[in-house]
């Protein structure tokens, strides 16, 4: 078995194959970068509230319980389409604002973040932006 199977060929195959597929991957990344602008509603990022909303989303670790476009923690609902599910940005803001401080006995509950009105506008604007992204008709239904 060993005579017909040399380490040298296997090693060259490793470097050749890896480089080859890395190049294919970079080419597809370039193609992705070229076609993302038609799908990502980047024009909404011009609104400073959306950018600030993303920062709020990150600095409060919302991904620690929720999923966004299906990625994150599976403890709390998907928020990629929450503006559509609850109906409006106002409804989302009301929900966040009304979280009980000591939680709901015996049940999972979202902490009260004490956001100012400005911050509530920002987080709602961010979630509205995310809900507009073309995600190939995902999630399957409004429940997310």
């Amino acid at each position, binding site marked *: 078995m060993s005579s017909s199977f040399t380490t040298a060929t296997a090693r060259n195959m490793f470097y050749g194959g890896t480089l080859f597929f*890395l190049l294919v991957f970079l080419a597809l990344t370039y193609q992705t970068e070229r076609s993302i602008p038609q799908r990502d509603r980047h024009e909404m*990022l011009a609104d400073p509230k959306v950018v600030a909303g993303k920062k709020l989303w*990150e600095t409060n*670790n919302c991904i620690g319980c929720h999923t966004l*476009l299906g*990625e994150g923690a599976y403890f709390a609902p998907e928020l990629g389409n929450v503006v559509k599910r609850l109906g409006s940005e106002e409804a989302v803001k009301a929900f966040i604002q009304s979280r009980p401080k000591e939680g709901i006995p015996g049940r999972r509950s979202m902490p009260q973040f004490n956001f100012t009105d400005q911050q509530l506008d920002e987080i709602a604007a961010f979630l509205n932006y995310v809900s507009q992204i073309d*995600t190939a008709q995902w*999630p399957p239904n409004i*429940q997310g």
Partner: protein
Amino acid sequence: MQYSSQAVAKPYFIAAIALFVAQILFGLIMGLQYVWGDFLFPHIPFNVARMVHTNALIVWLLMGFMGAAYYLVPEESETELYSPKLAIALFWIFLIAAALTVVGYLAVPYATLAEMTGNDLLPTMGREFLEQPLITKGGIVVVALAFLFNITMTVLKGRKTAINTVLLVGLWGLALFFLFSFVNPHNVVRDKFYWWWVVHLWVEGVWELILGAILAFVLIKITGVDREVIEKWLYVIITLTLVTGILGTGHHYFWIGTPEFWQLIGSVFSALEPIPFFAMTLFAFNMVRRRRRDHPNKAATLWALGTGVMAFLGAGVWGFLHTLAPVNYYTHGTQITAAHGHMAFYGAYVMVNLAIISYAMPLMRGRAANSNKAQVAEIWAFWLMTVSIVLITLFLTAAGILQVWLQRLSDNPLPFMVAQDQVSLFYWMREWSGLVFLIGLVIYVWSFFIRGEEKAA
């Protein structure tokens, strides 16, 4: 242990196991919070426990990889480690940075931690697995580069072997892809696109190279099969790994706003990702069957064989379950993903770490293998932890299937929380399995302290 500088690996392994215990404790907290919603609320909310759980996992696996590198590189290159003092210094920097980060997660609200640690300078926090503050990320980069310098200098002045080369490619790749954790565009689609360059190209790319190199080293030492055969198979396996894994990244680009050709490419290539794990299992069993010596360390042999099997099951089979786009459309963001995550991480990376620890620790304590009593305890721990992970994965898969049916497939889909209440039975059973895992882990740690007649090194 042929070189005195290999002893540098000992603190890394000890710290790795300690962090492993911390990871499991927080895992149990989260498991309980799934069924008893406000357990420890608001003191340790779910997201904080999750950060500690996932970050402790990644840090202890990295500690284990570094310890493994410090142990096997001197022996492979037949020369002393370039700078043992640097290795010890880096150990303390890394451990303290990790400890401070965990204290930061637990002591202050995450938003305050962000302000305190300069997240405004360069916002990189608040993303899954990459929640570390900016200074911790900077610390990780410094530690990683210094570690790589130390290991690379050792390899350069010593014998070049395939295991050394593959390990170095894996470690340099790991450091390189971690740099993408500093890429955090406002555009959510691009943010997620490059986030996967850290996460996927780690665990389904370069980490598999590190896994292959460590497993090959352990198998050479345990089976005595000559190096030429093992190194050839190592190269073939990691070729299949990167051939399928690099374009396999596409299976994360189905529903995040990226173009839809990824659904074809991601499905096709990630569908073939189990092949290298299957080849690794064949390879491991083949080498053990054709062993030329009967190594006294039965436990390490079991860990090495178990790594192949569980990696194939967890990463391969459970990965394939939900990797095809039409299936992933329904299982994306459900407990099925969590089930795959548990068994894949345990099967591939936890077990290979425990294999090298189980092989190297006795040698570093001056004996060829632990006493028979200690090995029996360790083998009990092996089966308890492995069976428990299989149970956790089965229960989460069942929960995931029911969740998909109730929340997405049925003609009147239930809201998220209502569906979660329906699957709480499986969450209870998962929590009990988690306790079994903790028992197994306790026995594993205890097995290091069992004395008895031991064969000299």
